[in-house]
């Protein structure tokens, strides 16, 4: 209902050719702005922070919120008692969380979506910088379409490096050149119900949203295409300059979900990234014992490890190139010592499904311990078990060497053997 009302007001405003100047605002709003337009107006908060109270009248007049006036959101302010009767505000973060409830009063759908997104999960987990409504939408300057334009999309305020990578990618270049179908941030991640595309099959499903024939196209040349789509993230091939890594995912086989951080397991008690990667990090025996511990008799859930080839950073995940430049040489990943297998992490599900990565020694990929512990991940050639290589060499030596030895012995003993034959014939 609130949405319908909102739309109606905006339509009326648009039809009336809404004023874009502060001096054309209604008297009540002008009264508020008479103070709040003062540059540098601010108030001290209980925690020692300051809150800017300055509003640009001209900007507010252009914003989509101006038809509702100041009291549309600040109904708690009683003009007769203001500014004297202002309640104490604990801090800026607290204030933003409180004001988000006001936004939800009209934007019910978006608020509900936000509640199911990763940003809300981070807020609930106590992350002090997880975005609230006002983090992305400056409430007094909300412009129609601003969140959908390259230069004003709010995501880049926090994800600046990722946005830079995106802007130079095939998606960003197309979007900049006016191709509306090319995705901007929200096209893949959602606008309010922001999801973590790196969790599970999320990335693949997001890409398939537009690239509906991707599987059919890959099946024309890629053996086991379906499997590749499950265990290789799209950027691992479509961001060819990115560094790749193996992300082992702790998986709850009972709930079929990525497992949460195991309780009471020392290796996961530190912050993500506290264990190194490369040569350090969880070694094969530790990982083997970890799985045994998690799957001890009587454990409520069965835990396994699935694996996934991915790029190492979020920035690299956005460095997507045209398909013609994507990696299509199988050797890139299937040869021993490939770049992809030099970095290994293990991830557990954090708030909102965000993967929390811990470093793992790359030796787990080639260890005999891993036959059991990471049975769910194997890349032909690239992660082969060293012990089996040794067995193969022994088999080759035995298969050719023993006959060669036997043949030699036979040749050396030929006189003795023919002598016996002759004696037998004589006998």
């Amino acid at each position, binding site marked *: 209902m609130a949405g319908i009302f909102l739309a109606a007001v905006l339509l009326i405003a648009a039809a009336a050719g809404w004023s874009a100047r502060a001096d054309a605002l209604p008297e009540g709003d002008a009264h508020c702005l008479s103070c709040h337009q003062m540059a540098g107006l601010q108030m001290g908060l209980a925690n020692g922070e300051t809150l800017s109270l300055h509003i640009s009248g001209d900007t507010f007049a252009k914003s989509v919120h101006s038809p509702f006036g100041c009291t549309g959101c600040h109904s708690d302010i009683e003009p007769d008692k203001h500014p004297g009767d202002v309640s104490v505000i604990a801090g800026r973060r607290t204030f933003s969380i409180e004001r988000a409830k006001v936004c939800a009063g009209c934007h019910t759908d978006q608020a509900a979506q936000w509640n199911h997104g990763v940003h809300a999960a981070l807020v609930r987990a106590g992350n002090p910088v997880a975005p609230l409504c006002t983090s992305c939408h400056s409430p007094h300057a909300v412009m129609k379409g601003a969140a959908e334009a390259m230069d004003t999309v709010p995501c880049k305020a926090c994800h600046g490096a990722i946005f830079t990578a995106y802007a130079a990618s095939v998606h960003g270049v197309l979007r900049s050149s006016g191709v509306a179908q090319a995705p901007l941030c929200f096209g893949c991640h959602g606008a309010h119900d922001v999801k973590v595309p790196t969790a599970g099959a999320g990335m693949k499903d997001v890409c398939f949203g537009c690239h509906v024939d991707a599987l059919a196209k890959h099946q024309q040349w890629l*053996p086991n295409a379906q499997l590749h789509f499950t265990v290789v993230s799209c950027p691992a091939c479509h961001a060819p300059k990115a560094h790749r890594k193996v992300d082992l995912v702790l998986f709850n086989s009972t709930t079929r979900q990525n497992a949460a951080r195991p309780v009471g397991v020392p290796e996961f008690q530190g912050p993500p990234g506290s264990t190194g990667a490369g040569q350090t990090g969880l070694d094969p025996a530790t990982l083997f014992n970890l799985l045994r511990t998690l799957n001890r008799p009587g454990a409520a859930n069965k835990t*396994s490890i699935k694996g996934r080839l991915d790029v190492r950073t979020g920035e690299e995940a956005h460095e997507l190139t045209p398909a013609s430049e994507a990696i299509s040489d199988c*050797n890139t990943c299937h040869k021993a010592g490939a770049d992809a297998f030099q970095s290994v992490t293990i991830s557990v599900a954090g708030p909102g499904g965000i993967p929390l990565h811990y470093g793992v020694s790359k030796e787990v990929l080639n260890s005999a311990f891993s036959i059991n512990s990471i049975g*769910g991940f194997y890349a032909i*050639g690239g992660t082969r078990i060293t012990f089996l290589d040794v067995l193969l060499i022994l088999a*080759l030596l035995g*298969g*050719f060497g023993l006959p060669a030895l036997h043949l030699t012995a036979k040749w050396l003993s030929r006189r003795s*053997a023919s002598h*016996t034959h002759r004696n037998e014939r004589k006998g």
Partner: protein
Amino acid sequence: MRRIYLHPLPVRIWHWINATGFVLLVLTGIQIRYVGLVDFVPFRTAVVLHAWVGFVIIANFFIWLVFYMFTDKARLYHPELNPVELFRGCLRQTVYYAYGMFKGLPNPFHLSRFRKFNPLQSLTYQIVMLFLVPLQCVTGILLWDITRFSKVVDFLGGVRVVDTVHVLIFIIIVFYIPFHAYLATLGRTPLEHYKAMFTGYEEVDDEEGEEAG
């Protein structure tokens, strides 16, 4: 000396398809597993060829199975159930290969129509044909389309477990093939058994022929 018809046509066809197929599977398998170190053919070609040859070998296995199930030749694969007899026969044959042959002593085993394999051969072929090859075929099919068979693969412990079994059998086959090819040269002449596997006829001593009768 007399000739006995020991290798019927279906067996010979099966044998040479198997031999060619396993050599191709080993070569493509090495190419797949050691890409970068070995580069006979492109990785993708090796994968596709490995899968196709694998299916030929699976079909060929059923030719073998049906032939032996529905003919009296099945007796060739009847296991020796007496462990003492089995051990004694294997030991006798091993001693011959390791010592007696060099001294010119006679082969303790004599060919006949229903005794084509010496005890060592018989034991080896039973293990290979009734255990290793079927297991290799099953793991090969699972690895051919892991997504389709994901539930079975997961039940067995995951792709790495299945692959390890497949590779272990591959290693045994790598050992077995040159050994098998060499042992086939230990007839009266080096090519005697090879020729027999084309013509179907083996030459046996007269007294052996009597046994064959």
